[in-house]
C-alpha cells in the first residue's frame, strides 16, 4: 500500500476549505495524483487539453470555409477562415458572464434546429417534401414503409425527379 500521510490534499476534507471545484478544476483530479505523482496535477494535464483543444479551433474554421464553399467557390477559403476567426476572438474578450450569454444563444439555435430537423426528417421519410407533398398525392411514389423509402429519393434512381435536384449534384 502507498502511504498517503502528509498528503492531505488527496481527499476532500470533512470540513473546512472548499475542495471541489477549486480555482483550477484540473486540481480536482485527485485520483491521478494518487496513482501517479503530484507533478501531474496541473501542468501536463492542462498542456494535453490545451493542445487538443487548440487543434479544434482551426479545424472548425476550415469546416466553416467548407460550408461557405457550398454557396460560392470563387472566394479563396483563406478569406473565410480569417473572417470567421474574428467573432470567437471578440466573444472571448468579454467577461465570462457575457461569453456564457452569447454561447447560450449560439447553442440554442443549434438545439432548436436539431429538434425541428429530427421532427421534419421523420415526416420527410413519410414522404412529406416538396416533390412528395403527402403520402399518396404524388404519382412518382407508391405509399411504402419508411425504411423502404431510403434509396427511392435519388436523382440517379428516378430520372423524373432530376429537375428538382440541385444542378451541381446531377450525377450520371
Amino acid at each position, binding site marked *: 500500500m502507498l502511504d498517503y500521510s502528509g498528503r492531505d490534499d488527496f481527499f476532500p476534507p470533512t470540513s473546512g476549505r472548499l475542495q471541489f471545484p477549486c480555482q483550477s478544476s484540473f486540481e480536482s483530479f485527485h485520483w491521478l495524483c494518487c496513482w501517479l505523482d503530484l507533478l501531474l496535477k496541473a501542468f501536463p494535464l492542462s498542456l494535453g487539453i490545451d493542445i487538443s483543444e487548440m487543434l479544434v479551433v482551426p479545424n472548425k474554421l476550415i469546416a466553416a470555409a467548407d460550408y461557405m464553399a457550398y454557396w460560392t467557390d470563387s472566394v479563396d477559403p483563406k478569406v473565410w477562415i480569417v473572417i470567421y476567426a474574428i467573432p470567437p476572438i471578440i466573444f472571448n474578450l468579454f467577461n465570462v458572464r457575457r461569453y456564457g450569454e452569447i454561447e447560450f444563444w449560439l447553442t440554442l439555435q*443549434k438545439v432548436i434546429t436539431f429538434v425541428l430537423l429530427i421532427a421534419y426528417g421523420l415526416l420527410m421519410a413519410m414522404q412529406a417534401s416538396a416533390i412528395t407533398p403527402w403520402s399518396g398525392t404524388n404519382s412518382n411514389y407508391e405509399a411504402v414503409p419508411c425504411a423502404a423509402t431510403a434509396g427511392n429519393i435519388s436523382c440517379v434512381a428516378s430520372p423524373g425527379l432530376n429537375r428538382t435536384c440541385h444542378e451541381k449534384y446531377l450525377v450520371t
Partner: protein
Amino acid sequence: MKEFLLGGGAGRLTGFWFACCQACFAYAGVETIAITASEVERPRQTIPKAVRRIANRLNFYYIGAILVLGVNLSSTDAILEKSLSDSTFGYHGSFVLMAQRAGMPRLGDFLNVMALGAALSISNASLYVTVRAALYMR
C-alpha cells in the same frame, strides 16, 4: 450491415470501424463542462445537473440524427459513394444532401447556415477551453 472497402465479413468490420472512428469525434467536447466548473455559480448543484442533461441530449440528438439520415438517405447514394473516393468532389454534408434529395435546396441552404453557426459555436467554446487551460497551466 453494409460492406465497406472490402468484401464479406472483413468489409462489415471495416464499415463498423469506420463509423466508430467518425462517432468518436462527435463525442469529443463533452469534457468542456469540467473546464467551466471553476466559473459557475453553485457548482455542486449545477454541474451534476448539466452533466446529466448532456447525456440525455446526446442520446436524443445523435440517435435522432442517425435515424433521420438512415431513413432519408440511401447508403448506396451516388454522391456519398463518390465523396468517399474523391475528396475534392463537392459534398457538403449529409443533411444538405438529404434536403437536396428531397428536392428542397432552400432547406439545404438553411441547414448549411445552421451548420456554419454550429461550427462557429464550437470554435468559440474551444477557444474558451484553450484559454482557460493555458491559464491554469502552472
